[in-house]
């Protein structure tokens, strides 16, 4: 039952097509998909946070929309910065630069020829055509560059954009929201003990995982 369900899903046109594209990694598709995957998860997370905020009875009713708007802006900010930084890093131009710096040795044509010349001197590799060696070498270097492309894009998107840039922008943005819209209208007594509910709520809210 499970296998037939998985088979049907896997062989659907969209899934099969995406699987093929990721597997072949044409033009760094795998890295782009990894960024898209993170953004999708953030998007869905954002949706849950916004709906939770709108339904959260611990927030005074007149403020809920503002808090939800704050969640939404945070989500949008995260997705936008990740897409921007991820796309920049995973672009061909940028990847080529990093690739040549890191894997220059295994990508240079003259080095491949030199390695091939040395290799065919070994008995068991005698007669191995350069083309076959090139293909083998290409297979190894392709995985190296794919790994590089995915990790640099992911680190740029999920560490630098999402965890360094967004908190810096989001925290003052949250305070600005709070000062501009919430504090002026907050006539109800705070429901959380000890502090204004929004001080705590907004501080906690603008830094999401």
């Amino acid at each position, binding site marked *: 039952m499970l296998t037939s369900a998985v088979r049907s899903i896997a*062989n659907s046109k969209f899934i099969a097509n995406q699987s093929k594209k990721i597997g072949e990694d044409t033009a760094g598709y*795998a890295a782009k998909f990894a960024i898209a*995957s993170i953004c999708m998860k953030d998007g869905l997370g954002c949706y*849950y946070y916004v709906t939770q905020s709108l339904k959260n009875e611990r927030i005074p009713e007149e403020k809920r929309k503002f808090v939800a708007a704050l969640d939404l802006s945070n989500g949008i900010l995260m997705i936008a910065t990740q897409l921007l930084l991820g796309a920049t890093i995973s672009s061909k131009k940028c990847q080529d630069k990093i690739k040549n710096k890191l894997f220059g040795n295994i990508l240079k044509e003259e080095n491949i020829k030199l390695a091939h010349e040395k290799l065919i001197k070994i008995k068991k590799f005698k007669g191995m055509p350069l083309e076959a060696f090139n293909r083998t070498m290409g297979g*190894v270097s392709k995985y190296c560059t*794919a790994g590089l492309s*995915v990790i640099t894009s992911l680190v740029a998107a*999920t560490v630098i954009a999402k*965890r360094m840039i967004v908190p810096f922008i989001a925290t003052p943005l949250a305070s600005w929201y709070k000062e501009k819209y919430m504090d002026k209208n907050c006539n109800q007594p705070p429901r959380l003990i000890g502090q204004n509910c929004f001080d705590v709520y907004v*501080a906690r809210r603008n830094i999401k995982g």
Partner: protein
Amino acid sequence: MDSVKVLSSNLNSVNTRRRYVKQPSFGLNATQAASKVLTNLDDVFNKMPSSYEQRREAKKLIKEGLNKTERFFYKLGKSMGEIQTTLINAVGTALVAPIFIAYNPIAKEDKETRVYSAWRQPVSAVLAVLTQVGINVPFTKYLNKRASEGRLGSFFDLSIKHDSNYLLAQAKKEGIKFANKDMADDYIDKIHVEQFRKEVRKKTKAILNDPEKYTRIFKNTLAPSEQRKMEYFGISVAEEAKKITIKQIKQVEKNVKGLKVVLGLGLSLLTLPPTCSLLNWAYPRFMEIIFPEKCKSQKLKGGK
């Protein structure tokens, strides 16, 4: 090896083609030649150059020659999938985000509130890893198994080259133990070579039973002498079968790799709602246990 060279130039060089094209095929037509080759298939495979083994050995040597950075990225590129994406994201969430939250100089909130909020990140990362990796690891194993059994359809059919992890799991079931990783790799290689040969043989037979295909190959087979035409024809058919097999294996492996990523993402998305609820439940409790004093002053409940 000379015969390999001649054969290779036969297939690639136009000049060579001109030189050999007029050789007669000593009275045999394509159908007769095909049936003769079919009855002497073992001879053909004995005369085949072992390019697959050569490439495999060369790949081993190339991998050994990689420096640490290259090897790290090679391994990463080979294993990259939803699990690795989740782990990288979790590292950012657990280790980087708290620092930037707690020590953000622009933030106006008091330090205690920021530190309290920052702690939510590692909790969230641990839960994300537990749920997303927890569901993706067994699912990947399941996909490897089903694909290796050929039960996911021809597009994802790994029955011609079983997934390495699946082979190791099977070996474990059969009580086969490996002293080290090299021995396990050799075991996997051995099975892959056997499976490859079996598939090439199957495809060679299929070509020799298909008049359209063997006639085309027969016509294009060029030999240095008429006596060697049969030998060259047999090798040409087997080479064609080999090419088709390699192409098929590579394509299916890529498709399965991609499938793991796509379905892995789907699963991770499915785990998000329960993870959010779990975090809402776990975060305040975690803080109350680990930092009771902070909780006293904050009086925060819930959280995301």
